[in-house]
């Protein structure tokens, strides 16, 4: 039962992820991304990491993709001509394909599952509230802060770039 659900969800996630890349229509792509995130959340539920599943849904599926859709619909890019050249040079395609293939191959060659009985039996960090929060505020405190700072910088950049400042009055 568990394995079947895992396989179903994994295929669902992979197919919708492919849909994000393949779809020409930006709205379809964004909705495929939503399906993909829902699939990943489902995988987390199968792995009994309920907290991660619902946080993923709340933050990414509930807010971030909604904003993506919001922007896509506002810009309405579906009718615009594609800015990317239709025929990428052959060498770039081969290079990209090779990189992806080598990445997948090295991952499948190096990683052995299950890692060990003890690691497999221990509950994951994302399984419960307390271990997750503890890790977030101790081990990962600095990365979280740095990421937050990066986001802040990006937001300020967007405000500076997009807003027209005419005089001192506008900056206030």
């Amino acid at each position: 039962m568990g394995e079947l659900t895992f396989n179903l969800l994994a295929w669902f996630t992979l197919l919708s992820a492919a849909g994000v890349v393949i779809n020409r229509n930006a709205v379809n792509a964004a909705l495929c991304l939503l399906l993909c995130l829902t699939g990943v959340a489902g995988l987390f539920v199968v792995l009994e990491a309920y907290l991660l599943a619902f946080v993923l849904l709340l933050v990414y599926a509930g807010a971030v993709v909604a904003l993506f859709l919001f922007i896509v619909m506002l810009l309405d890019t579906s009718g615009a001509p594609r800015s990317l050249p239709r025929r990428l040079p052959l060498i770039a395609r081969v290079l990209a394909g090779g990189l992806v293939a080598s990445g997948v191959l090295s991952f499948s060659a190096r990683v052995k599952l299950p890692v060990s009985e003890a690691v497999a039996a221990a509950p994951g960090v994302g399984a419960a509230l307390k271990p997750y929060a503890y890790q977030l505020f101790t081990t990962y405190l600095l990365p979280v802060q740095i990421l937050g700072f990066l986001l802040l910088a990006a937001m300020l950049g967007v405000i500076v770039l997009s807003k027209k400042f005419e005089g001192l009055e506008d900056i206030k």
Partner: protein
Amino acid sequence: MVDLYLSLPPLVQGLLKGLAVIMVIFPIGGACSMAERKVSAWIQGRPGPNRAVVPWVAWIPVLGPFLQRLGVFHVMADGGKMLFKEDALPGHVRKFYFVLAPLVAMMPALTTVTTVPVGAYLDAAGRTVPLVLANVDIGILAVFAVSSLGVYALILAGWASNSKYPFLGGIRASAQLIAYELSLTLSVVPVFLWINAPGTPGTLSLSRAVEFQSGAWQGFSAASWGGVWFLFLMPLSALVFLIALFAETNRHPFDMAEGESDLVGGFHTEYGAFKWGLFFVAEYAHMLIGSAVFTLLFLGGWNPLPWVPLATLVDWLTALTPLAAHPIAVGLLSIGIFLGKVLALIFFFMWVRWTVPRFRYDQVMELGWKKLLPLSIVNLLFYLGAIAALTP
């Protein structure tokens, strides 16, 4: 009966639970739409819907005319009308998403119900056991996560309709829902900080919040003061949560997505027949779940009165008749108390709708970002300080 149910395969059990959810939420949603028409009529001094009647009910002497004047049969008439009306599909819409949107509206509403406890019964040891379809430990987070997916229904409906008014409605809805989700989430953080004692594994369970308010679950050592409701302990949290709830469910002072006076019908302008009906039921289902969560968090859930938990009431009733201690009686009693509070809150939603005029869109944004959000942050900081001071 119970053994028969437990002997069924899990898939069938799940299907039965799902059917039960649909069969409870749909009629209540329909009844709420009727109640809305009647309440609006009372507030505006009109009789309201009072004509429809089923023939054989009309023959009952006093009750028949009373039910007719109450307008209860209009629910059936309305539902039947929406089901059998021609389901027109405008030519200019994006068909797939146009049909998908009402379904997406219903799904989060029906899914969140599974994690909302609706009542409790006392087991053999005298402990209260919550009645809930899926008793997950991260209750409130699950409710927020799944209900945040409701925004896609409005966005998709607005976009798929492929005309100006619905599109504006969808855009408004997405901006508004994201703006108020922040205050909504921040306003319940103090409640769960108060419940979770240092050293315990930590819980976000909604039934724990009710247990705390009945005095049965002791949080940190300031305890629950014999079962005070969070409404009295954290009035500001409750206020912010309630306002954000109005905005999240697109109810009247915040119904920017619909805005009949400036957007015709907003996101559902192009919809008709049962697809429109689904949006309508979904709105009431969201209200129902929002009111249920508010009741669980701030109004003591299934505890009858502040400082009077369910167990005490059951003790009093058992003194009158021993039948009251039966688990089914206790369960029905708790569901009755809980539903009473939820329906009272829904009446409050309607009361506000027919009393207060609609905001302008810039006022909605200003209230959300410049007033509610800072208020909920200050509120959180205050309770952080209070909890730190009260913890020995």
